[in-house]
């Protein structure tokens, strides 16, 4: 955990560490943004799949640390987020809990509050969205509520920034005085059983930090930790029969064999009582709400999906159209930067390493930042307006047929842009198995970096009118193979019961610019930091492999030949030839020759084999490698006519088809593979992905090669 820096926190200052807990969609992140307006430091805990965020700031003479925990509906371990929150609340060290609740929907929110109340921790309740409640004619009597629950309740609004100071004052006063125990009252039969257990614990003077009542409640709730503690105490032998009886009574009273269900009902009726006392609501005139009106259009049985497709199309248009404008500037900047830096380095090798290796490699990553920012903004908008749940609702039926979850669509669609944000956005999937399955499928959605390869080959083998259709077919084909692969994985590796699809459809809300800015900034910085370091390392490696070992004999031989050459054209041809000969004897060339037999059944020569392997670093590299290998010098792009000619001359149609199939399916680039490994949660998943994609790519490519051979 990050420690506070000195300026923000003199050692004499008093500390309060607050855990911010609430159900999803109650405006928790908004609140943390308003509270820490002058925030000093926002750090992400890395290593956890779903991050909790820590915010530090000063208020009065206290130094606050607020830990923003992922939203959770209840204390179950149903999703990763709930697990993170539950574990943090039970095991970590913190002073008190701020429970954020949505004032417009107290009944649902208090369900979590009741569970927090049995934890014997100090709590402050933030009645958030009080402005919205006012609008809807809901009036909450906060002081009466505080009295009834025995917990300070403060009305706040993260949007209008009302009540923030009062909330912090309440936190300080709870910290300073010993708070009273929350007044959680159960139905009579349950209270009787609690009294029975408390009586027994009192009689035996059982010593514990928590009150006996709290222990009794937790024992009845089958709380594992409480059991573990009391189990080692001699009172256990006599307590056990009492407990068994008590549990039977409670279950009998609720006509259920599930104690958790019984307690949920207890909480619900307690909360209904509280709400009846403290909430006054103007009799609503059964009016159709805004959300209902929007839903009537957006999740319309017929128009819902076309509307969604239109939005996605728009997002991708923006990603590529607007994204490409700064791309040229960035490209130009790195070109200039490389030249400028290169000019200051006298040593050839070092200059080549810095300019061709590091600057070119890192520049290639930064080149995609505009696209990524736009994509992230789009996704943040989808998330924060509440539209994403609607799309998951619309698509669940279709995706379910292929063994996937409705919520898989966002990562899959992002995969057409770049796999890295796609892997990261797979976090929205709650269930581990669904998330892993989606991670394995993302690579089948051809990313933007593969486009140059497709353009090159489509141009080499098809007429210009056909090339566009071929491109489209490649993209759609990849997606279809992906869906089939998902089905196969679901039936084999990720076999298991279908994950239930039960999802809240939150109210539509206008997104907050500040929150989106914050989310996008954090995510973009993460992309830059992580992918940037990996790409830089990969570039250095490829640079090294293609430049070493030095062959002085070869260099001199060509140097003299080039000098002797009569015309410019001849010189160019010679230097291209030199590049080819040089590459052939480099480590990379050796690898290519070595691996040639493996790829021979697919009709690849050693050059294509090498291009595939350099493509493991980044898919764009495939084109430049082919360019170098087919003797055209390094400055090659997909529109270079002579490369297209060289390819159509040197590569047979069947081999080209096989090559494209491999490019479509095989392992994503190094940076993406590393992000994949991180997100999947272990290096073994990388090997699974490697095996999975390689086998499918090889098999399908072999089939495609042979079919193409027969046809031509």
């Amino acid at each position, binding site marked *: 955990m990050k420690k506070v820096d000195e300026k923000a926190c003199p050692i004499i200052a008093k500390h309060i560490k607050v855990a911010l807990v609430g159900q999803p969609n109650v405006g928790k992140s908004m609140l943390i943004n308003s509270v820490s307006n002058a925030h000093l430091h926002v750090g992400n805990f890395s290593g956890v799949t779903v991050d909790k965020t820590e915010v530090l700031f000063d208020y009065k003479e206290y130094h606050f640390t607020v830990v923003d925990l992922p939203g959770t*509906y*209840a204390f*179950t371990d*149903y999703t990763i987020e709930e697990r993170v929150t539950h574990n943090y609340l039970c095991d970590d060290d913190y002073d008190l809990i701020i429970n954020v609740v949505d004032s*417009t*929907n107290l*009944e*649902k929110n208090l*369900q*979590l509050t009741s569970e927090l109340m049995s934890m014997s921790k100090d709590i402050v309740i933030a009645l958030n969205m009080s402005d919205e409640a006012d609008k809807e004619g809901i009036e909450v009597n906060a002081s009466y509520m505080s009295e009834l629950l025995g917990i300070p309740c403060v009305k706040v609004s993260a949007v209008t920034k009302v009540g923030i100071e009062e909330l912090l004052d309440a936190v300080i006063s709870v910290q300073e005085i010993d708070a009273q125990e929350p007044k959680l009252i159960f139905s009579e039969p349950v209270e009787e059983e609690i009294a029975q257990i408390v009586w027994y614990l009192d009689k035996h003077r059982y010593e514990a930090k928590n009150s006996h009542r709290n222990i009794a409640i937790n024992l009845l709730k089958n709380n594992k930790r409480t059991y573990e503690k009391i189990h080692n105490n001699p009172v256990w032998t006599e307590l056990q029969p009492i407990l068994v009886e008590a549990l039977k009574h409670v279950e009998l009273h609720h006509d*259920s064999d*599930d104690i*958790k*269900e019984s307690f*949920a*009902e207890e909480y*619900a009726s307690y909360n209904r009582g509280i709400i009846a006392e403290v909430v006054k609501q103007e009799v609503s005139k*059964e009016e159709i709400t805004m*959300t*209902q009106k929007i*839903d009537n259009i957006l*999740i319309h*049985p*017929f128009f*819902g*999906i076309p509307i969604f497709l239109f939005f996605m199309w728009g997002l991708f248009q923006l990603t590529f159209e607007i994204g490409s404008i700064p791309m040229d500037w960035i490209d130009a900047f790195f070109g200039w930067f490389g030249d400028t830096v290169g000019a200051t380095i006298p040593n050839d090798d070092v200059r080549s390493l810095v300019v061709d290796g590091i600057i070119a490699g890192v520049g290639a990553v930064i080149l995609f930042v505009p696209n990524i920012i736009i994509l992230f903004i789009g996704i943040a908008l989808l998330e924060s307006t509440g539209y994403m*749940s609607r799309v*998951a*609702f*619309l698509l*669940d*039926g279709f995706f*379910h047929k292929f063994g996937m979850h*409705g919520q898989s669509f966002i990562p899959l669609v992002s995969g057409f842009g770049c796999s890295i944000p796609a892997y990261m956005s797979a976090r929205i999937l709650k269930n581990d198995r669904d998330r892993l399955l989606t991670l394995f499928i993302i690579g089948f959605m051809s990313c933007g970096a593969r486009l140059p390869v497709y353009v090159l080959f489509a141009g080499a083998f098809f007429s210009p009118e056909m090339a566009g259709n071929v491109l489209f077919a490649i993209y759609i084909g990849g997606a279809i193979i992906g869906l089939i692969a998902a089905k196969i994985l679901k039936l084999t590796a990720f076999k298991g019961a*279908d994950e*239930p*699809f*039960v*999802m*809240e*459809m*939150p*109210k539509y809300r206008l997104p907050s610019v500040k929150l989106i800015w914050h989310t996008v900034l954090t995510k973009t910085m993460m992309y830059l930091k992580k992918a940037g370091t990996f790409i830089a390392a990969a570039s250095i490696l490829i640079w090294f492999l293609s430049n070493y070992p030095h062959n002085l004999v070869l260099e001199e031989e060509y140097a003299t030949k080039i000098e002797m050459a009569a015309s410019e054209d001849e010189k160019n041809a010679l230097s291209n030839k030199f590049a080819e000969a040089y590459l052939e004897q480099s480590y990379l060339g050796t690898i290519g020759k070595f691996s040639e037999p493996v790829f021979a059944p697919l009709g690849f020569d050693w050059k294509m084999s090498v291009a595939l392997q350099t493509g493991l670093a980044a898919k764009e590299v495939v084109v430049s490698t082919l360019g170098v290998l087919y003797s055209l010098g390094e400055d090659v792009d997909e529109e270079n006519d002579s490369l297209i000619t060289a390819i159509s001359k040197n590569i047979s149609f069947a081999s080209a088809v096989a090559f494209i199939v491999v490019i479509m399916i095989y392992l994503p680039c190094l940076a993406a593979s590393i992000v994949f490994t991180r997100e999947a949660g272990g290096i073994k998943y990388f090997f699974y992905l490697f095996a999975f994609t390689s086998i499918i790519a090889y098999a399908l490519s072999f089939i495609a090669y042979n079919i193409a051979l027969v046809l031509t």
Partner: protein
Amino acid sequence: MKTLIDCQNCQLKDCQKNCKLKVIKLHAPTDLKQRLISFGIMKGSIIEILEHSPAKSTMEIKVGKMRIALRAKEAALIEVEKI
């Protein structure tokens, strides 16, 4: 036993106000039951059906003030009665 899925066609907009369903029992396995309960779907709660996805594989219901999406398969585990 009548479950939510049998009431698929009694959407709120079709039958005005008489379309509220009361939950009698949850027949779901423990995990899912906890999930449903945390969403407020438990014995005695009142459900309204709002919308269906194409092909009726998924439905949108309303419990209290919350809108929830459910697959037909999960809906079949919720025993209800008309009120």
